[in-house]
């Protein structure tokens, strides 16, 4: 009798535990946007780049098969001509490879390059939903011959069966699951293979590499600033990026140290941890909230006691700057440069990307009853497409 009860309890408990973990993993899985805040001071060094012409050379038609990020082998008789992109980084890659005229569908988050918006207004491209919320019907109604999704985004993965049932080919690249430049390069290359534009891909990868090397060689080797990344305003939780994320790799490559590197995924930190590591630089994703309010809020949390805040090196990133740092894609070089100038402002000056703000305290003497938060914003730089 007792044994039966014990067994029953164990079974029920195990089931509940399993269910709990299942739900937890699902919720915790998937990527979140990482944000890095960089400060932009007035430009002293102007870095301009021109977009070089991309020549796309199309190979003669032949059947090829390519392995996607899920390990599936997909065959293509000919390069697709009606493509739907499910992620902003995928859209950026396609444009960077000169494949924009093949795109028929993008997400509402696909905001780069600006050409996307023009094509949407013209009607050449249709919005098929959000990045996390793609609409199956809208996709199917476009009659695409290829849908490219991100292997790191569960809603994309969930579309697999439905799309295949509708007879639409779907291909996954690492996209948001990319954790370093090699992942990005392999994504670019595999896309190029599908569209038979391998030469353009190599040129692109090359340019990115050159840009990155240029940055890397100037990074001071003797000092490694400690960096705290917060995925959102501290009011609703101190979420950071673990060591196995793309942003963490970027930080390391840019010569910094991610204080949350010992964790994996998107850990929730507490003030004790942050203050015991005393970061030199804090980067907060503003998520569209008012910067003055956010700054005041940060000043009232224990974050104000970090070295980063006291030396005026708390950065808010938003919108474009946020996107650049969050999307593993063709703007990799720019991301590295931006991050490097946040970490080493004396060496690199400021990147020419707006929507990066620094919180600095006023020049008045600091009293306990609140010090002024002066936001120094970037001057009115014209928005230029910066690619290599």
């Amino acid at each position, binding site marked *: 009798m007792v044994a039966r009860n014990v067994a029953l*309890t164990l079974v*029920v408990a195990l089931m509940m*535990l399993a269910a709990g973990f299942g739900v937890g993993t699902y919720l915790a899985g*998937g990527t979140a946007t990482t944000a890095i805040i960089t400060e932009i001071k007035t430009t002293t060094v102007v870095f301009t780049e021109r977009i070089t012409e991309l020549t796309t050379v199309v190979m003669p038609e032949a059947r090829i098969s390519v392995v996607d990020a899920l390990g599936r082998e997909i065959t293509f008789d000919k390069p697709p001509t009606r493509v739907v992109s499910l992620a902003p980084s995928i859209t950026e890659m396609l444009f960077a490879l000169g494949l924009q005229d093949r795109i028929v569908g993008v997400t509402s988050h696909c905001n780069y390059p600006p050409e996307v918006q023009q094509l949407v207004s013209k009607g050449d491209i249709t919005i098929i939903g959000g990045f996390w919320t793609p609409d199956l019907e809208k996709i199917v109604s476009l009659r695409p011959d290829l849908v490219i999704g991100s292997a790191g985004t569960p809603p994309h993965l969930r579309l697999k069966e439905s799309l295949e049932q509708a007879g639409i080919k779907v291909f996954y690249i690492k996209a948001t699951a990319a954790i370093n430049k090699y992942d990005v390069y392999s994504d670019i290359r595999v896309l190029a293979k599908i569209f038979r534009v391998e030469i353009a891909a190599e040129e692109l990868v090359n340019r990115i590499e050159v840009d990155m090397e240029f940055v890397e060689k100037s990074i001071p080797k003797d000092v490694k600033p400690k960096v705290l990344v917060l995925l959102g305003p*501290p009011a609703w939780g101190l979420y950071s990026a673990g060591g196995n994320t793309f942003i963490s790799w970027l930080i390391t490559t840019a010569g910094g140290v991610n204080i*949350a590197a010992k964790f994996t995924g998107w850990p*929730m930190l507490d003030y*004790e941890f942050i203050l015991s590591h005393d970061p030199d630089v804090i980067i907060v994703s503003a998520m569209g*909230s008012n910067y003055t309010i956010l700054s005041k809020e940060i000043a009232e949390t224990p974050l104000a006691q970090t070295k980063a805040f006291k030396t005026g090196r708390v950065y808010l990133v938003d919108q474009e700057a946020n996107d650049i740092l969050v999307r593993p894609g063709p703007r990799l070089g720019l991301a590295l440069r931006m991050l490097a100038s946040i970490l080493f402002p004396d060496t690199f000056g400021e990147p020419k990307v707006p929507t990066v703000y620094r919180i600095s305290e006023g020049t008045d003497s600091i009293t306990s009853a609140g010090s002024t938060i002066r936001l120094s914003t970037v001057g009115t730089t014209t928005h230029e497409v910066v690619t290599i």
Partner: protein
Amino acid sequence: MAYEVIRTNRTRFFLLSLMFLTLISLLAIVSLSIGSSAIPPFKALKCLLGVECYEPVRLVLGFRITRTIASILVGCMLAVAGVLVQGITRNPLADPFILGISSTALATLSIALLIDVSILAQRQLSIAIALGGAFLGYILTTSIGVLAGGTGFSLVLSGIAVSALFSGVSHVLLYILQDRFRHPYINLLMGSTSGVLERDIPYLTVPALLSLLALYLLRIPKALNAYLFGEHHASQLGYRVKLTTITSAFIASLLTGASVAVVGIVGFIGLAGPHISRMLYGTSDHRVTIVLSALAGSALAISADIVARLITLFSTRGELPLGVITSIIGAPFLAYLVIKGGRR
């Protein structure tokens, strides 16, 4: 004979309270010794006792004190809310969220976020909005409940209806917002003391004190004792049943709403606290069980918070939300309750 029985009961009450207070003190000491900065417990204790205190240790200790106080308060408040809700429904399986207020709090916050994203950046405002949403939920649930008869039963039914409706609303909003706000939402949905600041604590202490005052000025414990034996039994003892249920529901909502607003949704404590106190004391005399539940709830909450921080020290996942830990402990406990209840 009666006198002996009463005296035995009173002694039991006293001893149990003492036991819980000791337990809570010990847990508090452990809680202050453990944290993500991995400062040796010994150092933390020395600082606490004022023996030898370096600035960084004192700083860290400050955070731990805030978290510990938040846990104690939230545990207390949720457990007492649980006793009240179980009292007015006469159902040992009721928990404080049955009144539907957590879903209205969430829905209100979601709508506020849609209107103004900057709320995401403002903790005090978010807390206030969540509290307001909880209050709205209480008004809604009570209005429908009173129209349906005003008994504990009708309150629960209307709470379920309100909960269902607003859960739907907040999930739709979550769906819309989740591209950008997924992580912050998780904090609210699953509860954590890691983001609690010192200046948030009044949002817990003030409702707690107000509730305490209301409970004893309005003599709720005895009213609930009478109501335990039936609506008519209570009425013929001179108690206004509708008033008792509405006021108890209000106090429960205030306590739960404040907890949710500051720490997020933490389940299980509102269910287990009352159950533990009834199991240990033997009966449901609310004069006793309210106090014992509060103590049991605090102990549970501090333990869960300690476990949360231990996970940070020993695993790469980082801190698990408080609500998740209490659920994991809660699963076998609930199974045990179900089996034990079924056998009778």
